[in-house]
């Protein structure tokens, strides 16, 4: 054991608590239906400085036009988030409590991580009352993606824990004694535990994970972003998004320049000693020691070597990235141990405070979501990738001929409104486009012109009119940005935007 410890001191970050685990592999506890985890995890969560989390879902966007676009307003982005979190299902939920400890020999504070992967079954336990709850969506490419990472779909469906939100739990008419027995409720109690201890929750690019967590374990997502943020904040008052820190902090920006900010690349660039523990590497003084606790007292549990896109392992990586980011922010972990009376040593740290409850939105819009105030506000430190979009100046057109391309679209509008009238055109898909005009009044003019051309369908003036290229075929429809929002808000999921717009029955 002495020799082993010596080894650990030189390469402290590859340390494993059990001799059975292989180098560089992280043992992740697998929790399935019927497995006991509640008591052990409860005490782990209670003594953790923070809990990292991650979710794996059956998809993100039900149609190509439901992906995030740069021209999406905050409202539209929320509608897309709401649709995604309420229609897709969770397959795995990863929780990883990080428990502080003082290294006996060096006196430095390190962490012991306990990664857990919960396998979830999409089926809700309630029957009859919520008919549509029995259905969920899958995005074909997401399932193919999970398959390339060897995700076991059979485990989810055969042995996954069913989940039940607080609201539904109340709705299910079962005697209270029976309720606590249910594993669906059991898992939700862990979420309640996170909430009741005001635990610091850490995720990476986690707005969608939080939305899923809210929808699946708490209640249906409210209808506005403000209300959603307010309600999330009441339940989880301390959330950290590592993606936000990476984008907002100058030191980290400098450190990670030209590097991808995806979770796995952030993990390998910020925590090289953990991520490539199998190789000999110099340990930097700034590295935080993270050990993985793989044994457990219950004995019979199942462990897997963690792999990318397994929820428990992703939660582990997120937590490791967070500890390293703390070092770059100048945060030390001494208070995590020194004063046991402080229940929230990290979240009250002044250096972390500016980042607390600030979540990266789904698209880099130069804004950040502040859950403390329930507002979306400009974030000056984000590197703006795209010029600001004037929503008032936007026209939506759909149903045009499939040969209509950017060049002729811009060209024919320029003939009518002037050479610089169009700032840019964004094709939502092959059947719909958003046109951004230089001036707001062009929007009104364009829509009025369309109407008058349609009224005088067959007279030579309208046939020769430059805009007739756009309206050829008679199926082209148009509206302003609110029309776009109304189409997105419609519940249906037609593959082509044109069909969705027609089905949603918006005025045009």
């Amino acid at each position, binding site marked *: 054991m002495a020799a082993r410890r010596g080894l650990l001191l030189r390469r402290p970050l590859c340390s494993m608590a059990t001799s059975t685990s292989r180098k560089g592999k992280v043992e992740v506890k697998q929790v399935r239906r019927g497995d006991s985890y509640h008591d052990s995890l409860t005490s782990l969560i209670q003594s953790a400085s923070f809990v990292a989390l991650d979710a794996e879902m059956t998809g993100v*966007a039900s149609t190509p036009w439901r992906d995030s676009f740069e021209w999406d307003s905050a409202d539209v982005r929320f509608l897309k988030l709401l649709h995604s979190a309420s229609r897709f299902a969770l397959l795995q939920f990863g929780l990883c409590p990080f428990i502080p400890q003082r290294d006996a020999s060096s006196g430095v504070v390190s962490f012991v991580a306990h990664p857990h992967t919960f396998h979830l079954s999409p089926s809700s336990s309630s029957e*009859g009352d919520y*008919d549509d*709850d029995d259905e969920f969506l899958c995005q074909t490419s997401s399932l193919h993606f999970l398959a390339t990472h060897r995700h076991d779909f059979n485990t989810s469906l055969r042995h996954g824990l069913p989940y039940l939100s607080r609201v539904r739990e109340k709705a299910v008419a079962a005697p209270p004694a029976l309720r606590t027995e249910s594993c669906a409720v059991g898992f939700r109690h862990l979420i309640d535990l996170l909430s009741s201890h005001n635990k610091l929750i850490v995720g990476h690019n986690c707005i969608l994970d939080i939305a899923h967590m809210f929808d699946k374990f708490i209640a249906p997502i409210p209808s506005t972003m403000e209300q959603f943020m307010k309600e999330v904040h009441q339940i989880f008052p301390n959330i950290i998004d590592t993606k936000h820190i990476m984008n907002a902090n100058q030191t980290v920006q400098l450190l990670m320049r030209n590097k991808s900010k995806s979770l796995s690349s952030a993990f390998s660039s910020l925590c090289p000693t953990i991520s490539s523990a199998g190789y000999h590497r110099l340990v930097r003084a700034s590295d935080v020691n993270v050990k993985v606790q793989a044994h457990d007292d219950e004995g019979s549990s199942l462990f897997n070597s963690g792999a990318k896109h397994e929820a428990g392992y992703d939660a582990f990586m997120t937590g490791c990235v967070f500890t390293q980011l703390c070092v770059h922010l100048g945060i030390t972990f001494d208070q995590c141990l020194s004063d046991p009376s402080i229940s929230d040593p990290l979240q009250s740290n002044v250096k972390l405070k500016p980042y607390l409850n600030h979540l990266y939105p789904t698209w880099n819009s130069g804004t950040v979501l502040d859950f403390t105030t329930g507002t979306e506000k400009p974030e000056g430190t984000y590197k703006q990738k795209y010029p600001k979009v004037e929503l008032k100046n936007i026209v939506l057109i759909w149903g045009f001929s499939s040969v209509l391309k950017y060049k002729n679209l811009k060209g024919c509008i320029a003939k009518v409104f002037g050479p610089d009238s169009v700032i840019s055109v964004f094709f939502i898909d092959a059947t719909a486009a958003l046109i951004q005009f230089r001036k707001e009044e062009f929007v009104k003019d364009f829509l009025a012109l369309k109407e008058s051309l349609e009224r005088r369908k067959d007279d030579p003036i309208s046939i020769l009119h430059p805009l007739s290229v756009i309206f050829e075929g008679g199926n082209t429809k148009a509206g302003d940005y609110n029309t776009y929002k109304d189409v997105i808000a419609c519940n249906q999921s037609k593959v082509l935007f044109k069909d969705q717009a027609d089905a949603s029955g918006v005025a045009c």
Partner: protein
Amino acid sequence: MSSHTVIKQVTKSTFTPSLLRELKSHIDACDFISLSSIKTFSATSASSWRRRLLPFDTAETAYLKAKLAAESFQILNVSICPFRVEGSKVVAFPSTLIQNQLKCYNFHLFPREEQSYSFSCQASYLESLARKGFDFNLCIYEGISYLSRVQESLAKRRNATHLDFKVFSKSRKSVADSLFMERIKARIQYWRKSCLNSNKSPHGDLANSLRQLILGTQLHGERPCMTIDVCSDNQLNLILETVNGISDSLVPLVVRNSLGTPTSVRVVFTSSEEDKSALLSDIDHAEEEQSFNLRGFREVMDLISNSQKPIVSINCLNDFAFFHEKFIAPLPPSLHEFTCSLKMVFPKILDLGHLMKEIGPLKNAMDTSSSLNLEVPFQADRDGGQSNQGRNALKIISLFVKINYLHICNNIEGYFNMFHPTACMELESVGCQDDTNTYLTHQEDIAKLGVHNLVFLWGFNAASSLQLKDKLRKYHPIFHENFDLKVIDRNCAAIAFQRQGAVVELLKEIKPRSSSIENMISDGVIIAGFGAYEKVCRMGLWDGRLADSLQTVVLSDNTNSPLLAEKSTEICWDNEVMLDQNEYLKV
């Protein structure tokens, strides 16, 4: 007997042209093909009114529900078993194989992103499949993809093949055209000359490679080729015309980008007439292989379609709505158009559900036959799981043979392409026990009624259907007559009157607000005829509760009609079906 049946599990890796040839030989030798599928949903286990087939659904409304389902859900398995029947015996093919072996093919399917961007799943049904051992990993990891006929023709237009470009000889060429052609001609001729000489080059490899570098010669397989970029269809046309004018030994191949736009022409040099035909057949072969992979499982459907053999199945309306949507074309808006379109692809479909409805309950016949040992290929396999997947096609054969034996149908042709809309039960798709007898005897609880016997009722406040019946009796004397009542979802009920004409009498009093129903109306209870439900389905008002959708139709109706059914259609009112188990007790 289990040694007589083999279920072959077919996945991406085992789906080959040779397997298709084997299946074709089996189909050619058979009289019937049994067909069954597993989807990401089951109409019988669904609870919501828009998914489930209800006892008052007509063929038309059942089709509209099947259409909605086929557009939302996905097919995971299709099992196919070609067979022949002689008396009570199922004979298998080809008979020269292992004696009387019946071979069933179970195809695992999973779409590509281009075919299906996203799809719905019914969680409770997937869970029940998983419990019985259904292997979802096999589907998602190894599933065969497919392309419908319509999708293929769209894709063909986008990805025209190498040789697929018609040359239009423009009678009048511009000066620019002629100059372009001259330049291209000179380039190709110079390159061709070097190709002809390269074999005789005295300077060896180094000089050859230098020449290749300078002339831009590349290799197409083992043959030399050169690439000429194109910017327009006109240029493409001119290049192809030029190449054809130089020598027969040059083969121009059109290279396209992902959008199907031609980007360049690859001119391949062939050394002889034989070499040229070898190249062309290689290209044909490669393209054939590519389109085989692209069409995927559709090849099997085409095989069945081309054979024109009768297909035997259960729940045909649902299954074939899926097949039409996924393998043929998007579903048309009405049942009539659907059956016409389907008939062109599958001319003979025998729906066992319809057949059983026509010949009536077989309970008595079953009792007398229980001692009979019918030689059907069904055999329970104890090992369960994956090897049992695809057993439904065998169960269908078993059911078909039993029906055939108990009730000799001389004129089977008369039953083709008729669908029985109410799938009151379904064979258990993964399980291995023989549940076909229960299916056979189930039919007797079904009363045949017409849609004119029905009204819909909502806006009431009652704790059970018994209580509701009591309330109704107080509202109007007509409710003292004999009627059956089913609660559909919490606050909506369907009422079936025994007496013809009762519905018309009742609805007559609604619109002018006769005093006899004043109490009912002031309580907020609303009644509408079957026409309201037909409209809900036709307009696609599927979201939310049925009562809300019916209300929308009633409010939008300005004809002041009582919303009677458009035409008299028979329905199968199953007295045993309970629709809402949570809220109501069966009376």
